[in-house]
């Protein structure tokens, strides 16, 4: 190792004390803010050991809540996946007037208070709302039933896939697609063979985020659920119900499920990010041809 290289290294590297301070700060912040709340959940859930933990799942209402949660996510995620692809194509591959405005509208459900998201559906489908009387006359239930919960979930998770894809697709530009088109590929083929493989990992990450949010949403769903035990309670609502019934062990056991879901998706995510980096590295090499 030559002296100049060591010098350079030293200049670019942070001094030891700073390194220690930063790592210490990170460990402290992550420990206090992230690990402790997580630990509370698991410690409370396992207060009575494994047996008590498993006992918490011996509750048909809990399983119904899990089922409803999965149904809501199973509808919301594919819908927003398709939307995310379509929207990011329009937004990332073309320049047009009002783009920032459009992106902001797409982002809106992310920043809007979940209470408001619930409220708008009450205004639309409630008995005193726009469509309420008609729905009631036709014996259709939207809010206080599964469709309302699904709608609220779709609303809340609306931006996630699109927001993951748009920056990446913008960065990638459209040279590859143009090349494919000039070689005679159809637009559809170009999308399947060129665009999709390029964004597949970001897409998956978006889906994971979208799914996590769909399964964990509380505020918006709380407004439209009606809280009927075993019927319109999602997992987060069931957790609140258990907590309110002084059954905090079961509440935290259910919460641990969602936390575990989080941990599992994070594992997948780590793999995805590793792959993403590889893709980025590969695309930085001009000579590398994308295997399709």
């Amino acid at each position, binding site marked *: 190792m030559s002296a100049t290289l060591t010098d*350079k290294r030293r*200049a*670019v590297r942070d001094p030891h004390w700073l*390194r220690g301070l*930063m790592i210490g700060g*990170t*460990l402290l*912040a*992550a420990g*206090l*803010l*992230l690990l*402790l*709340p997580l630990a*509370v*959940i698991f410690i409370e859930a396992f207060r009575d050991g494994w047996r008590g933990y498993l006992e918490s799942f011996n509750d048909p209402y809990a399983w119904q809540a899990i089922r409803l949660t999965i149904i809501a996510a199973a509808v919301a995620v594919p819908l927003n996946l398709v939307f995310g692809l*379509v929207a990011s*194509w329009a*937004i990332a*591959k*073309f*320049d*047009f007037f009002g*783009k*920032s405005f*459009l992106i*902001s509208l*797409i*982002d*809106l459900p*992310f920043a*809007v*208070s*979940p*209470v*408001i998201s619930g*409220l*708008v559906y009450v*205004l*639309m489908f409630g008995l005193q709302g726009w469509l309420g009387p008609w729905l009631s006359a036709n014996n259709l239930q939207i809010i206080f039933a599964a469709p309302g919960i699904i709608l609220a979930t779709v*609303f809340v998770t609306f931006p996630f896939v699109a927001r993951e894809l748009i920056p990446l697709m913008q960065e990638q*530009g*459209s040279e590859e697609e143009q090349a494919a088109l000039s070689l005679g590929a159809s*637009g559809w083929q170009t999308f399947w063979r060129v665009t999709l493989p390029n964004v597949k990992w970001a897409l998956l990450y978006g889906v994971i985020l979208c799914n*996590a*949010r769909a399964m*964990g949403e*509380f*505020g918006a769903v709380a407004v439209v659920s009606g809280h009927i035990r075993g019927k319109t309670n999602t997992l*987060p609502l069931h*957790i*609140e119900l258990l907590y309110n019934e002084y059954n905090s062990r079961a509440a935290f056991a259910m*919460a641990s499920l*969602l*936390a575990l*879901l*989080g941990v599992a998706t994070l*594992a997948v*995510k*780590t793999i995805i990010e590793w792959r993403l980096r590889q893709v980025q590295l590969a695309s930085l090499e001009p000579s590398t041809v994308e295997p399709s």
Partner: protein
Amino acid sequence: MAFKLKSRSVLPGFGLTLGLTLTYLSLVVLIPLAALFLKTATIPWDRLWLMISEPRVVASYKLTFGASLVAAAVSALLGFIIAWTLVRYRFPGRRIIDAIIDMPFALPTAVSGIALTALLSKNGWIGRYLEPLGIKAAFSPLGITIALVFIGLPFVVRTLQPALEELDGEAEEAAASLGASRFTTFVRVIFPSILPALLTGFALAFARAIGEYGSVVFIAGNMPMKTEITSLLIVTKLEQFDIAAASALAVVMLLASFAVLLAINVLQWRIAKRYRGVM
């Protein structure tokens, strides 16, 4: 250059995809939100103004926006430290920390609220050490801010990480070889190039904090004029069967959130443009 105007693009599908995007956006977001605006529009102006400007409501705006702003700033600082550490250093436990950054995002907000309250209240793990110091963490604006930092932190870390990873050592090395100190290098070279990402992360955390409800209500204390956030006030109005007032407050919140988001996106669009110009 090739895609400055949409008409010049050779790529197909603009009309189709934009049409579908607008349709779906309208169905899921715009029409429901229009219901909110229409409901508010039925209120006479003078009454509307009274609704959204009474002292208790104004106090809730101050708290909501104030706590969100402080929380976003703290998130930005902590988020920077964490992102820097995760990207630049290798140490035991790095992967675990990297993995749990998204945890606040995956947890239901109510669960976060309950867990944080359990930690910070008088007989909680952290609260019991703060109590003798005269610091009231739960049921105070401080508690609200902590909950909002918890919610906002992932957004800062996740926007900063890629920006920090993209920084190649060359500029830093050049600065160093020209005799710049590490501090000067940071202030002059590193900081400017990650500033856009930092601002975006800050704004995202801020936008998310304004709308946050589930985790805050458990820890807030909900005292009028003191620890009552606007989202809670909306719920309170609803539960008093005052849907009009709830809608009016919701519209104020909605416009504020939208303004923040628009600011972020215009900022990003400008940066992207500049970036492209350099290319």
